[in-house]
C-alpha cells in the first residue's frame, strides 16, 4: 500500500507543479535558515569538554566586601563576588590544594625569539598554569608531557608548546628537550600538544576571550612566569588602587586578574570544597560574611554570558521563519487536499477507510517534506559556507556541517511538513463521500 500511496502522491504533486514547488521552496528555506543559525548556536553553546565538564568547578571569592557592591547606583544589591581571584587568594588556594586537581592561571603574551637571527621575533598567546592543568583538562599531547609539581615549586624554566608553534619554530617533529627563547630566556620544551583549541576557551573565559580561532601557543609554569615578571595580558579589575607599584604591587593588591579551576570528583567533594571556601573567606576577610561561589563549568559559562546574545536572537528569528513556513505549507496543503474532495469521495465510496486516507495524505505531505529537506540541506550547506561573510570569523569558523546536522535537517523538514499536513489531512479524511458524489 505504501508504494501505491507514494505513486499517488507523486502523481498529485506533479499535477500542480507551481504549488508543489512553492511548498518545497518554503520548507527548504525555513529549514535552511533554522539549521544554519542553529549550527552556529550549537557551536557556541556546546560543552567544550563533555567528558569532564561535570567535575570542573570555578571558585569565586569576594575580596572587596560590601562597600564595593554599592559602587554602581544603577545596579544596587548583591551582585556576587567578582569573576576572577586576587593573586594572593589564588596562590593560597593552590597551597591548600584541597581539590583533586587544580590550577590558577593567567594569560600571557610573551615574545618568542627565533634562533635564526634573520627571523623577526614574534609574540604568541599563552597561559601561565600549574602542572596539574594538563591532566585536569585532558589536554592531548603529541610528544612529551606536562611538568611536575616539583617544577612548579622550583620555578623551572620549562614550557609546553602547541603543534602550531612547534611547526613554526622547530619545523615540527619531536621537539621535547629543545630550548625555546622566550623574552630572552631559555625554556626547555617538555611537551608538544596535539591540536587543542577548545571553544569556548573555557579555562580562562574572563581573560583569553571566549571564541578564538587562534589556539594558545604556549603554556609555562605559573610561578616561573610570575618570577620572570611576565605581565598579564587579560583584564585587571581593581576596586582600590594597589598600594605598591609595578607587577609586584599588583600581586599584593586586591585587584582581581587570576582565573582558577578545580576538579571535584563527586557531590561530597563539592560540598567539602564549598565548606572549605567559606572557611577560607572567613579567615582571609573577617570583616564581612563569606561571599563565595562555586559554579560548575557549564553554569560558569552561562554566568559569564559566553553565548553571544546575537546568535541567540538570530536563532529565534530563524525559528520564527520556520514557523511561518509551517503555517504557509499548511495553508497550501489544505488548498491542495480540499481541491481533491471529489477524488477522496470516490475512494471513500469504494471502501477506503479514514485511516487509509490519513496514510495517503500524510505520505504526500512527507514527500513534500523530504524534497524540502533535500533542498534545505543544500541551502544549509550554502548558508554555513557563507556565514563567515556575515558573522565574525572566530564564531563563523565554528559552524560546520556534519552527519548529525544532516540527519536533523532532513528530520526537521519531514516532521515539519507532516505537522503542516496534519490539519489538512484531518479535513480531507472528514470529506463526506455521499455529498461529494452527489455534487459532481
Amino acid at each position: 500500500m505504501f508504494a501505491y500511496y507514494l505513486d499517488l502522491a507523486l502523481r498529485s504533486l506533479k499535477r500542480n507543479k507551481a504549488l508543489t514547488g512553492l511548498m518545497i521552496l518554503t520548507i527548504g528555506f525555513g529549514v535552511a535558515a533554522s539549521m544554519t543559525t542553529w549550527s552556529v548556536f550549537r557551536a557556541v553553546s556546546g560543552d567544550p569538554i563533555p567528558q569532564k565538564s561535570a567535575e570542573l568547578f570555578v571558585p569565586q571569592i569576594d575580596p572587596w566586601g560590601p562597600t564595593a557592591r554599592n559602587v554602581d547606583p544603577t545596579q544596587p544589591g548583591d551582585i556576587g563576588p567578582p569573576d576572577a581571584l586576587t593573586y594572593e587568594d589564588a596562590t593560597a588556594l593552590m597551597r591548600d590544594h584541597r581539590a583533586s586537581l587544580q590550577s590558577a592561571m593567567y594569560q600571557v603574551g610573551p615574545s618568542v625569539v627565533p634562533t635564526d637571527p634573520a627571523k623577526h621575533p614574534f609574540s604568541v598567546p599563552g597561559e601561565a598554569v600549574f602542572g596539574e592543568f594538563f591532566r585536569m583538562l585532558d589536554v592531548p599531547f603529541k610528544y612529551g608531557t606536562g611538568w611536575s609539581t616539583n617544577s612548579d615549586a622550583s620555578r623551572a624554566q620549562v614550557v609546553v608548546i602547541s603543534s602550531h608553534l612547534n611547526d613554526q619554530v622547530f619545523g615540527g617533529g619531536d621537539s621535547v628537550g629543545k630550548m625555546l627563547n622566550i623574552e630572552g630566556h631559555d625554556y626547555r620544551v617538555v611537551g608538544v600538544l596535539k591540536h587543542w583549541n577548545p571553544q569556548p576557551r573555557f579555562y580562562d573565559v574572563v581573560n583569553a576571550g571566549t571564541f578564538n580561532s587562534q589556539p594558545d601557543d604556549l603554556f609555562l609554569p605559573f610561578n616561573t612566569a610570575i618570577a620572570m615578571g611576565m605581565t598579564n595580558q587579560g583584564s585587571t579589575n581593581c576596586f582600590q588602587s594597589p598600594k605598591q607599584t609595578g607587577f609586584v604591587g599588583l600581586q599584593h593588591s586586591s585587584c582581581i586578574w587570576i582565573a582558577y579551576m578545580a576538579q571535584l570528583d563527586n557531590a561530597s567533594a563539592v560540598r567539602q570544597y564549598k565548606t572549605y571556601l567559606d572557611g577560607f573567606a572567613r579567615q582571609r576577610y573577617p570583616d564581612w560574611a563569606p561571599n563565595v561561589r562555586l559554579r560548575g563549568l557549564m553554569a560558569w559559562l552561562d554566568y559569564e554570558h559566553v553565548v553571544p546574545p546575537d546568535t541567540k536572537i538570530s536563532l529565534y528569528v530563524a525559528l520564527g521563519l520556520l514557523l511561518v513556513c509551517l503555517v504557509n505549507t499548511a495553508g497550501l496543503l489544505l488548498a491542495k487536499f480540499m481541491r481533491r474532495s471529489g477524488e477522496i469521495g470516490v475512494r471513500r465510496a469504494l471502501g477506503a477507510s479514514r485511516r487509509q486516507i490519513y496514510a495517503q495524505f500524510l505520505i504526500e505531505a512527507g514527500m513534500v517534506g523530504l524534497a524540502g529537506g533535500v533542498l534545505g540541506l543544500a541551502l544549509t550547506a550554502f548558508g554555513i559556507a557563507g556565514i563567515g561573510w556575515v558573522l565574525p570569523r572566530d564564531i563563523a569558523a565554528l559552524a560546520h556541517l556534519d552527519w548529525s546536522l544532516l540527519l536533523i535537517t532532513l528530520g526537521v523538514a519531514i516532521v515539519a511538513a507532516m505537522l503542516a499536513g496534519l490539519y489538512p489531512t484531518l479535513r480531507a479524511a472528514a470529506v463526506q463521500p455521499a455529498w461529494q458524489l452527489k455534487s459532481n
Partner: protein
Amino acid sequence: MQIQPILAALRHHKAGTMLIALQIALTLAIVCNALFIVHQKLAHLSQPTGIDEANIFVINNQWADSMSGPQIDAQMQADLAALRQLPAVHDATASESYPLSGYDWDDFITMKPGQVQKTTDAAVYFGDTHFLDTLGLKLIAGRNFRADEIAPLAPHHDTVPPVAIVTQKLADKLYPNGSALGKTFYAMNPAPVTIIGIVQRLQRQEVETWSAPYAYESLIFPRRLDGDGTYYIVRAKPGEMAAAMREAEQALIAQNRMRIIDPKDGVLTFAQVRHRAYDSDRGTAILMGIICAVLLVITGAGIVGLTSFWVGQRRKQIGIRRALGATRRDILNYFLTENFLISGAGAVAGIVLAIAINLWMIAYVQMTRMPWFYVLAGVVVLLLLGQGAALAPALRASRVSPVEATRSV
C-alpha cells in the same frame, strides 16, 4: 463595497482564512522586531568616534626584548620623533588604546575622595601634547597639555596626574551647569585631577552594552605608558595614507628591529578598525535583513497560492455573478477586499504579537522598547504585500467569463 457577502463566503473557508491571517500575524510580528534590531545595529555602528577617521592609521607595536621602563620610554620618544618627520605624516602620538580598539581602560569617577558610589565611569586614554592634533579632536574650552605635564608611566603604577582633558559629555555629567573647566574630580585615587581642557567628542575604546550609559565619557591623561607594547596612532596628510603607512613601518624597523609588528594585523587603517569593531553588529543586521526578505517573499507566495486556489474553486460562482451583471471591477474588488479583511485581521493579531515579542526580548535579551513607528511600518508593508499578492489571482478571477456559469463543473 459589500462586506457582508465576503464574510459569509469566508465562513466557508474558516481554516484557510485563519491560516493566512495567522501567517500575516506571525510575519508582521517577526519582521517589525527584526527590522527594529537591524535599525539598532545600524545606528550603533554609525556612531561617530569624534576623530579624523579618514586619515588615521594605527600601528600595534610590541617590544621583542624585555626592556626596562626608561629604555622603552626613550625608544618611544625616538620612534615618535621619527614618525613625525616623515613627509606623508601629519602628526603621530603614542597611546595604550584608541577609540574602538576594544581594550578598555576605565576608571570610576567620583566628585569627592571618600565617595562610595561612583558618579560615572570614564574611559581613560593616555596621550602627549600631540594627542589632540593626531586624532583631530576639537578643543572647545581650555588648553592642550604642556610638554612639562607629560610624564612616563610604568605599567601598574597607579599615580594619577594632576590634570586631564575630558570630553564635553564627561564634563557635563560631572558639572551639569557647564562650569567644568578648572574644576576637579577623583579617579580612584585620593589626589584630585583638574580639568584643563574640554574636547568636543571622543568615543570610548569599546562599545559594549555595559558601557552604553557612559557613552562618549572619556578623559585623557598626560602620560606615556611604558608597557610591553604601545599603539602608535598616526595621522597622514590628506590623500597620503598609503604612502604614510609604508613609510611609518619602515621608519620604525629602521629605528630598532627588536619589535613586533604583526604582518597581518600590525598596521590597520581606521576604516579596518571600524570594520572589525562592528563585525558582529553588521553581520546580525545582514542576517536579519535576509531572513526578513525570505519571510516576506514566502508569505507573499503563500497568499498568491491560496487566493489562486480560492479563485479556481469559485469559477462557477464568479461566472454566475458575472452573468447576473457584476462587472470585472466588482469581481476584482471582491477578492482584493477579501484579502484586505483577512490581512487586516492578521495585522491586528500581529500588532499584539509584535509587542509581546518585544516585551519578552526586553526581559530576556537586553532589548529596548520598540517605537510604535516600527509596528505601523510593519502593518503598512504587510497590507501592501497582501494586496500585491492577491492582485494577480484577483485579475484572473475578473477575467472569468459569464459562460462559466453554464458549465457543470
